[in-house]
């Protein structure tokens, strides 16, 4: 039943897991229609810092799903920033695994999930559709996985560029201190 069209990157996979939790013993019968809704463009997502707001269309009805994502831990932020500085600043699966292996899994934590529909089930199809659509977007652009956890708003210790960064090609945007923008740090 695994649909690898969603979550083929490790970054996107985290959001597929919200829908297809490993703890579930049997697949939620709502999943196929949730995937179809995401695929058919029935989910319109807007971001506001760490808040994901989605307008989800099903039939003639429209529901609004609101998801609050917890901020990424300072350790994970620092670890990712450190690894983004280097030869190639790419959010690859390898980078994900390295960060996780270092003890700071970058998987998001959801603070709250809310849907405007009156469904009585613990998880409604709108919510599931949003998880898939997030996975799809993140597969395409893994920066979203970080952005939605406040990564680009937090600073990971700017000004003190790690010593090993010397002669490196790139340095992560948010590990630099904006105060050193116009005047070199001493």
């Amino acid at each position, binding site marked *: 039943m695994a649909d690898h069209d969603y979550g083929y990157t490790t970054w996107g996979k985290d959001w597929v897991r919200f829908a297809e939790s490993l703890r579930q013993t049997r697949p939620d019968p709502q999943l196929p229609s949730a995937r179809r809704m995401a695929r058919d463009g029935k989910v319109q997502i807007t971001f506001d810092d760490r808040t994901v707001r989605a307008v989800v269309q099903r039939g003639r009805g429209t529901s609004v799903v609101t998801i609050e994502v917890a901020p990424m831990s300072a350790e994970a932020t620092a670890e990712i920033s450190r690894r983004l*500085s280097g030869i190639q600043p790419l959010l690859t699966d390898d980078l994900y695994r390295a960060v996780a292996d270092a003890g700071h899994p970058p998987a998001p934590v959801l603070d709250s999930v809310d849907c405007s529909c009156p469904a009585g089930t613990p998880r409604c199809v709108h919510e599931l559709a949003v998880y898939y659509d997030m996975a799809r977007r993140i597969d395409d*652009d893994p920066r979203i996985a970080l952005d939605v956890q406040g990564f680009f708003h937090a600073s990971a210790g700017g000004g003190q560029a790690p010593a090993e960064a010397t*002669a490196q090609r790139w340095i992560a*945007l948010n590990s630099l*201190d904006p*105060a*050193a923008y116009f005047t070199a740090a001493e």
Partner: protein
Amino acid sequence: MTASTLPKTGQQLIPADAKGTRQKLPEARSAGQATYLPDRHMFALWTWSGGAVGAAPPVGDVETVPLVVPTPDLGRLRVADVDCVLVEPDRLVAVPLDSPGRSVDAWRSWIAGGEPALPIAAHAVPDATGVAVTTAEHASGVFRRTTSVGAEMRTALTAELRPYQVRGVSWLRETIETHGGAVLADEMGLGKTLQTIGCVAGRAEKGPQLLVCPTSLVGNWAHEIARFAPGLRAAIWRGGPLPEVGNGTVVLTGYPTLRMHGPALAGIRWRTAVFDEAQALKNPRTQVSKAARTIAAGARIALTGTPVENHLDELWALLNLVAPHLFGNRAQFRRRFVRPISDGSPAASARLRGAIEPIVLMRKKSQVAGSLPPKIHADLRCDLTEEQERLYDRLLEQVIDDGFGSGTERQTKVLAVLTSLKQVCNHPGLITDDLGELSGRSGKLDLCTDIVASNLENDAPTLVFTQYRQTGELLVRHFAERFGVNAPFFHGGLNQERRADIVRRFQSDDGPKVLVLSLKAGGTGLTLTRAADVIHFDRWWNPAVEAQASDRVHRIGQTRTVTVTTLTTGTTVEEHIAAMHDHKSALSDITDTSSVAELTRLDDDRLIEVLRRKRVD
């Protein structure tokens, strides 16, 4: 200079959430900035004023460059499109700037040999996906290495490299050292040949090098190497026993030879293998691609002028050829990039640029326009095919047997044989009347076709000039068959109304992509500035006539760099004509007939000497 009055803020880091507590930086009020662009070895000049990016300083043409800049509250950094003026290092020293900021002072000091610390503004070039910034170490390292390569090239090559070309050489070196291979994908006209020769010249002492290109370009490479790097020994190989290879040798060969005789190359450990027009290797399953992969080389360089981002399968093949350890898995490449990009994802395009950035350098003319003269001349040598060689020799033997005669008869005969030989160079079918299949029979036509193909890819309208009505018709037919384009033919046989109509249609935005013109009818008076690319399909005695024709596009209203390409068939009388240009360019009043008259005055032996093919190798 306000920097010295700045309170030391290096250690105090205020998170973005604590807005409002951050003090404004005095430097930030209004200052000119200089950001080094490592790929171009140029500086982007821009201004910061009143907490935002200001207007570009009034010192040249404005270009938009994505740079990392502070947010208005100076709390964060983000990527923004910044209006800049691009200048070369030499110019940064003297360019007048109002209140230059620390980034300008720091780079001026680097140019003078100092090594002061660089503020972020001095190296604020973002990566393709916008998550990282070029480090100060990388920017200053590239600057230093490129400057020293520039000094080295002044003695290694007889040509003077433009700054972006010096960077091309230093980039090739760095990339080969780091990754073992590189793809140089500069737009046509930027001098990939010269940059490659610069790189090859620097590696010559450590072993033999191999260069594979389309057959029609082998002679051109030999010519360019002899011209720009006389210290290198270029040896053309067309199969059979290999020439003796040693340090300083560059073996030149065509793709068909590689395909058929590839094993002969396998026994040698090449210091470098260069693949020119590497799109010839786009299909990894073909014999020629397999042969290319079996070549044992310390470094592999692929050159291509087609916009690689439009042909992702082709791009993968090149990446796999030069850096198989980085780009080994085709299925993964398709899934990660090809599929989402074909679905229209800009994020996937950015990710692709980021992924290939370490081993692909691609610059457009528009990006280095400040380093380019308004007109670039590309004089290409093409080779004769075997059919052309046989026909050329046969025609000449016949004339020699018949004799040239004397007086007016001699003049007529000389003119006639010149015309036939030049037509053989254009296409043998023009003499034999066998005009069925046109491709693969004229080195010149094949090369011209490659150039037009590349221009079509780049949406660059092209003018093709020829002296001969029949050649013009052949070109029109060939472009229609090869590209499905309907190229009008502007020639003396058209009435005024038809001519005006062709010009009007060509100048309109959706006008034809290729226009063929007769040199006599189309060489003067017209304005054809929609094109910035001109090809002279055959050579004329008087350089002023060619220049006048080229000026159809290089006139008021032309905003781009004009590229003028001349095609000269190596070893033939066309080389003699091209050589005459060098003597004549100062004497534009010399009439064309006088050149023929000059030939007529030569004695038979000397005349035959001029007309006969100069055999190489």
